[in-house]
């Protein structure tokens, strides 16, 4: 195998909060690593030159929470289509949740996800193993073997870990392997049968509400268990004002808790459900404006460490039905950057540098993954995007197989130009 050609990213705005780097300059990639970043770099012989004028060159985005549906629902998404969609969205790595069929709860299953991910030759795919066998919430899965095979975290996402005892044990046991335990916070008896956020909109539409407290009760339980065990708990898709207050409380006390929020919870409110829009149905549900604003502030002050997509493709036939029969979840890989720029950066809630931290640097840091920096010698996982480019979302044009997005037809700002993984261009936008 011949050495890959050098890649020279020319004249972009190099932006990496992990290095306090922000300036126009060139970036050279050699042998899949970042050779140098900054200043003017002469074009080496045979190098591929990509003109990045007017674009931002940032560490590649890492999504710590997505659903790629393989194995089990390859009609809805495959690791291949998901990894390509990720690359198109500027993600150089994604973490695949284990709620597939069968569940990723053993080393062979973890190995399968990794193998499919490598074959995709797009964004890196890191498997997340299940906390419990079959995600049944009963017996711990073999964390050690799964981590040995390549799992980067454990989670029963899609379902909460109902048993506090099981959660405690998982946090304790995960310490040996240095992996986070990611929990889907939902008190099941409070949330049972719920279709959307509990409030005036749910009352008007006659849909069963899920109170914010269903999430918050589990969030504080997990934080307290992290305090008890010293294990790293990672709270998935935090969506309420109360949750971020509880996380803030935990962090102030040095409890090992990290948390993520999703682009949709940072941009849309429960009003989006009006008209029984199943593309606005997800779990946790879209919340009130006060919640959205509180979570936005938590992203700003770092209470929320990372923004993760919770990309959840569903078949159109499944989404096109009565609201309470439609499945939860929306796709997000190809809209995350633009939604975040449109609602967070353009509205001056956070800077572009902070956004890059929450989408690239922090995910690498808290999940212990390579990448997330433009430091010399680091993996050349790089995202190049135009933060000002306006585009109209056309779900039919997505690389994901899913079409279930609430952003269809909306005009958003910020679009990926190209994505490099291991110094190779895995996505380049045409036109």
């Amino acid at each position: 195998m011949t050495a890959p050609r050098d890649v020279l990213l020319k004249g972009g705005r190099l932006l990496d909060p992990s290095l306090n780097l922000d300036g126009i300059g060139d970036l050279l990639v050699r042998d899949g690593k970042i050779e140098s970043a900054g200043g003017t770099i002469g074009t080496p012989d045979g190098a591929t030159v990509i003109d990045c004028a007017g674009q931002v060159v940032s560490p590649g985005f890492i999504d710590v929470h997505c659903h790629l549906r393989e194995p089990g629902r390859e009609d809805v998404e495959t690791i291949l289509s998901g990894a390509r969609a990720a690359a198109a969205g500027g993600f150089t790595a994604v973490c695949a949740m284990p709620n597939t069929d069968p569940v990723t709860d053993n080393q062979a299953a973890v190995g399968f996800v990794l193998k499919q991910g490598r074959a995709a030759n797009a964004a890196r795919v890191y498997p997340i193993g299940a906390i419990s066998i079959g995600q049944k919430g009963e017996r711990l899965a073999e964390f050690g073997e799964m981590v040995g095979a390549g799992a980067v975290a454990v989670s029963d996402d899609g379902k909460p870990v109902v048993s506090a005892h099981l959660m405690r044990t998982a946090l304790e046991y995960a310490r040996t392997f240095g992996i986070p335990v990611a929990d889907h916070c939902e008190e099941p008896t409070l949330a049972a049968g719920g279709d959307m956020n509990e409030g005036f909109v749910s009352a008007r539409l006659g849909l069963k509400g899920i109170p914010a407290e269903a999430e918050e009760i589990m969030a504080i339980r997990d934080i307290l268990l992290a305090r008890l065990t010293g294990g790293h708990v990672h709270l998935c898709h935090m969506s309420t004002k109360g949750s971020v207050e509880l996380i803030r409380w935990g962090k102030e006390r040095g409890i090992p808790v990290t948390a993520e929020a999703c682009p949709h919870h940072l941009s849309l409110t429960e009003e989006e459900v009006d008209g029984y829009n199943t593309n606005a149905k997800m779990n946790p549900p879209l919340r009130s404006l006060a919640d959205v604003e509180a979570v936005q502030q938590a992203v700003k002050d770092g209470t929320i460490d990372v923004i993760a997509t919770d990309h959840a493709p569903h078949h159109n036939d499944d989404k096109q039905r009565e609201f309470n029969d439609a499945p939860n979840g929306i796709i997000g890989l190809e809209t995350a950057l633009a939604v975040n720029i449109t609602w967070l950066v353009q509205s001056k809630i956070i800077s572009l540098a902070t956004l890059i931290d929450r989408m690239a640097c922090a995910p690498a840091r808290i999940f212990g993954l390579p990448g997330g920096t433009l430091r010399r010698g680091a993996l050349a996982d790089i995202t190049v995007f135009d933060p000002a480019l306006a585009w109209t979302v056309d779900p039919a044009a997505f690389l994901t197989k899913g079409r279930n997005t609430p952003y269809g037809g909306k005009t958003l700002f910020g679009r990926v130009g190209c994505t490099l993984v291991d110094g190779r261009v895995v996505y380049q936008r045409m036109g």
Partner: protein
Amino acid sequence: MTAPLGKDLLGLEYLSAEQITMILDTAEPLREISERAIKKVPTLRGATVVNLFFEASTRTRISFEFAEKRMSADTVNVATASSSVSKGETLVDTAKNLEAMRIDMVVIRHASSGAARFLAERIESNVINAGDGTHEHPTQGLLDLLTLRQRFGTLAGKRICICGDVLHSRVARSNIWGLTKLGAEVAVCGPRSLLPNAIEDFGVQVFERIEQAIEWADALNVLRLQLERMTAGYIPSLREYNRVFGVTRERLDRAPRDLLILHPGPMNRGVEIDSEVADGPHSVILDQVTNGVAVRMAVLYLLAGNTPALADAAKGGDR
């Protein structure tokens, strides 16, 4: 004057006060038809109406069927016992199949909130919501409005209290929208476990105790309490419900004025309402049933006329 209500009747939330008043004004003269020896007018001759009931219902279906037949429509009843859990053909497939048989209107009752709208967005026929989940039951709301208007003359400033399981009641929602739009003061009364958390946002008062509601109101609309609410843990027992929230003769005797009593049926006598009250002089429960047919005739009439399948060369007019 084409389609004054639009294509469908999905809920009273989506109608203006003028549209609601138009339906009531149309229903008034239509009541006379049911008093004739030949209880039929040829208005909807040639129109096919499908009563698509995914939930068991006797009263509403019969009332619609009478209304359709008295307007000379051809009716087909499709009772699909499938709940939202037992899936067979999807709702949209069922509807498309019916439409392929060239129908003009669908009256739908379904356990899922939003099902009527879902259907309306996908077929050309007029869709009438005969109750969707816990969302709305607009024709019930309209017949309640008509009944109250007949007794009160106007609804403006009248005090109506909706009593019972508002949380799960589509009748309650349609009543709240309709009554507030027509200028009535609306309150709800029931255990907090059976009221939506955000109930005040509807612009209604809340009474914790039925005695307060009775003291305040000009009319009570007493909702049916489903037995399932007890098994699902919303209330401890039907017996206690009756003791604390039941509309009883003793409680009404202490009211400062005579109250009209409405109930959408079917009644649980001895639970939310006592027989003495249900059959008493201030009960308008049977008027509601009579008005139900008239209101549904009015809705059928006002929705008709924009059905492309039925359009024919009939022309002309006088003058």
